[in-house]
């Protein structure tokens, strides 16, 4: 592997500009490897000790036509000297494989006004006059801004190494980035080896050659370098995306059966589990449909250890009837909903937080259950352990609401220290004590011990029909009232065990921002900026949505105004026809208004991308006395 060793072509004589953070994007047509390049860059940066947050830029189709703005595919990596908790506001440096995908990013406002744009320049001299004209027009549009445009002959350079440079220039781009940001080349090489571990040695060596080519080209031609100083790594970290974290968390919780049906953006949890789960004594069952996936998980949970199912909005809707059954027969179940834009097929690859009310109220009849939303990728891991445990202890359905931002985002976090206590206990098939019934509800808490098949003396038939403690079908009045009360009571009991949430910032002030799910990093960054500007702003992030965390009313009272920030639709107060009475509000704000009787406002957007901290800051300012002027 001597050929694969990277040597520096020229002494480094270009001074690096120091930045506390920088945001980098690689954009291309689908299938050109921009995401692979970005993933490797992000992983290397994390391993060097930079704070990192990455976001996938995904077109809706697998193979959209080339050179169209809508088809932009790529990867954004925000790196910092300290921890990075969200994707930030805008890109500072972009590498683009054609000018059309770059235009898409420009038009979306994704690029900082002074961004550096490294762009493949072969299109300027393309054989096709239309392509040349498109290039020229794009250059005019981009030149109207303050960007620094750097044409790069990527494919022309790569031709020295490969016949089809379309398949290799991502490594050339990685080489350029490695030079610009002074990445540790040993780590880059290791990461390439890992990323292409299923490919041949030849491919690996070719990639290293291309990497070196890009690195040398940058050293020879660029007059700028950027330095984001990595912090020494003082604790054990792991780096992964949210769906991998959910999968690993499920493993750590000791669950052994995942039933699912493919749906974006949830499926990659099962891709991960499909690869490793059997080593842990678990299986992924790909069911014939979403309904069956729920049914298999419920059947498995009914007969043994808690099982789980994974889905996203449209699949979640299909599972509804089974979820009501699980609630009625008090079968523990964990359901992961990786939310995407809706309703219907909506935005399959894009983030949204609009399943909250459907999750809470979707089942006809009263079907109380638990809803937890992890706020970070680290929490995606730990939430599964809590979810399994709560499902089992409370004989309830626990829904875990993640979203596309967490699912595909990658960030380093403290390495979990696995504990055998996290895992489900082995099945206890001891005979059921005489007199114990199927639902021996404690009249105060509603809690009861599970009886599972195999236990002698516990035989009964569970039924979705209303039933009494002995699972006998309710033919007399009062039974349904009592059963409903017992199933509901469990939520209040769970809430009594939760601690009041911690306010980020001061415990009182002019404004409190409340969020849930993946927006935590962006909200807290916006709050930091507002506080630095002297504003009395704090935030609160909820993990439990059902039951709600306790003490909210008392916390809210200490602020002049409270509003939620959410990625779901709400009417703007000044929109036509909208009044205070008919305004459709953000989903969490609706729940909070109900629970606290506080006039909780909301600021919500459905842009099909994560919220930008700058946009949240604007919303904060607009709600401050005097419009938030310093």
């Amino acid at each position, binding site marked *: 592997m001597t050929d694969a060793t990277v040597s520096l072509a020229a002494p480094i004589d270009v001074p690096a500009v120091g930045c506390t953070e920088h945001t980098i994007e690689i954009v291309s047509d689908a299938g050109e490897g921009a995401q692979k390049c970005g993933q490797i860059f992000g992983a290397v940066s994390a*391993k060097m000790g930079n704070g990192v947050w990455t976001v996938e830029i995904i077109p809706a189709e697998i193979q959209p036509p080339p050179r169209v703005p809508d088809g932009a595919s790529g990867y954004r990596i925000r790196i910092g000297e300290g921890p990075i908790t969200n994707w930030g506001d805008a890109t500072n440096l972009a590498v683009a494989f054609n000018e059309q995908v770059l235009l898409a990013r420009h038009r979306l406002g994704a690029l900082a006004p002074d961004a550096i744009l490294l762009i493949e320049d072969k299109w300027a001299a393309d054989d096709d006059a239309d392509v040349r004209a498109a290039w020229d027009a794009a250059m005019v549009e981009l030149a109207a801004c303050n960007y620094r445009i750097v044409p790069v002959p990527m494919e022309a350079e790569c031709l020295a190494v490969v016949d089809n440079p379309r398949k290799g220039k991502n490594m050339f781009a990685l080489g350029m980035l490695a030079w610009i940001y002074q990445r540790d080349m040993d780590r880059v090489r290791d990461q390439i080896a890992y990323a292409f571990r299923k490919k041949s040695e030849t491919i690996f060596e070719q990639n290293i050659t291309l990497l070196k080519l890009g690195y040398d080209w940058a050293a020879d031609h660029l007059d700028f370098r950027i330095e984001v100083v990595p912090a020494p*790594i003082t604790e*054990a*970290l*792991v*780096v*992964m995306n949210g769906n991998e974290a959910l999968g*690993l968390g499920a*493993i*750590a919780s*000791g669950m*052994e*059966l995942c*039933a699912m049906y493919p749906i974006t953006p949830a499926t990659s949890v099962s891709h991960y589990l499909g690869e490793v789960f059997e*080593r*842990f*004594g*678990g*299986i992924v*069952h790909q*069911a*014939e449909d979403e*309904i*069956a*996936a729920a*049914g*298999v*998980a*419920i*059947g*498995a*949970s*009914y*007969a*043994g*250890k808690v*099982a789980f199912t994974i889905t996203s909005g449209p699949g979640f809707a299909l599972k509804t*009837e*089974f979820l009501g*059954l699980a609630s009625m027969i008090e079968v523990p179940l964990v359901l992961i909903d990786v939310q995407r834009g809706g309703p219907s097929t909506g935005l399959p690859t894009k983030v949204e937080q609009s399943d909250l009310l459907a999750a809470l109220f979707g089942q006809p009849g009263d079907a109380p259950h638990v809803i937890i939303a992890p706020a970070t990728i680290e929490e995606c891991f730990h939430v599964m352990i809590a979810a399994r445990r709560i499902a089992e202890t409370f004989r309830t359905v626990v829904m875990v609401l993640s979203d596309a931002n967490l699912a595909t985002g990658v960030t*380093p976090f403290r390495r*979990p220290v*696995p*504990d*055998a206590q996290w*895992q489900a206990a082995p099945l206890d098939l001891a005979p059921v004590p005489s007199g114990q019934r199927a639902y021996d509800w404690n009249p105060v808490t509603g809690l009861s011990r599970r009886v599972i*098949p*195999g*236990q*002698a*003396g*516990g*035989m*009964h*038939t*569970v039924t*979705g*029909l209303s039933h009494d403690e002995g699972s*006998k*079908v309710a033919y007399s009045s009062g039974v349904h009232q009592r059963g409903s009360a017992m199933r509901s009571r469990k939520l209040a009991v769970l809430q009594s065990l939760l601690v009041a949430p911690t306010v980020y910032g001061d415990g009182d002030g002019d404004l409190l921002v409340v969020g849930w799910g993946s927006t935590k990093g962006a909200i807290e960054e916006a709050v930091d900026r507002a506080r630095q500007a002297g504003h009395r702003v704090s935030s609160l992030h909820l993990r439990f949505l059902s039951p709600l965390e306790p003490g909210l009313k008392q916390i809210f009272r200490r602020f002049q105004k409270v509003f939620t920030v959410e990625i779901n639709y709400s009417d703007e107060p000044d929109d036509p026809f909208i009044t205070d009475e008919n305004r459709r509000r953000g989903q969490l704000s609706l729940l909070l208004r109900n629970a606290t009787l506080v006039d909780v406002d909301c600021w919500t957007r459905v842009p099909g991308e994560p919220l930008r901290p700058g946009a949240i800051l604007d919303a904060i300012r607009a709600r401050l006395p005097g419009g938030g002027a310093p």
Partner: protein
Amino acid sequence: MTAACGLLPVLDQEEDTPSYEMSDYEGARARWCPGCGDHSVLTAVQRLLAAEQLKPEQTVFVSGIGCSSRFPHYLSTYGFHGIHGRALPVATGIRLHRPDLRVFVVMGDGDCTSIGAGHWVHAMRYNLDMVVMLLDNAIYGLTKNQTSPTTPQGFRSNTQPHGSWLPALNPLSVALGVTNASFVAQTAEWVPSHLYATLRAAYAHRGLGFVRILQRCPMYSSAVYQAAVQDPARIGLLVHDDGVVVPDLEKVYTTQVAHDPHDLDAARRLAGVTDRIHLGVLFRDPSRPRYEEIRRVAPRTAEERLVELNLELDRYAV
């Protein structure tokens, strides 16, 4: 009972275990209408459970919604009375997670061939080791007389008062058309000895034993099977050493059709015959792969999982 001796597993009962009588499997008093064919199936099943000496705590009956899906309530085993059409996914989950349990599925024609038809096709293909009974009375009874997919064309109901618009769906042809189906049989509740023998053969089969049970609904669809009940000549008994053999039955049902259950093409032809009802095992192939065995994984202790989990975290270590 001497039926299908070649098929029956040897009981590995210990001498001192208590033996179960039929009455040991009785649950709540059945609330089906007098004359309902479900009573007959319940008796045959209780007889089967006693014959096989199945421990009630090791046995699970899973059903959907409908008259016949009340079945588990009337047994003393574990039961899962779930939702309409979805008995098979629940049974699949139980079987995958707990291969030590014996699983029986009871569905009506609405459950199996209409709202749950998708699950039916796939369950046949998974070929999990369980007995699946389709109690086919060709009508929706619990919801009071609506047309089902197996209702004969022209038969009047509340939803199709001018008569069912379409030819009835043939459950046997569907089942025999599914890749990896391993056992398909048909019997009738009004021939109790055949019903019992067929259920025993299905139970003895390693794989999914699908049994369509022709069943009268005295309220709404007794006319559907009336001719066959009254005239044994309309019934053809499938006979073969590897099928269901019921002594003395040939005295009543004189039409005997020699059929080797390993012959899938012949089974499909017989399933398609419309002027005669064939009772017996149409198809049986115990060599077909069983999903539960393909997917079986070695159990891991908590400590083994911790070791593997740390290795997995190493993969992601910074």
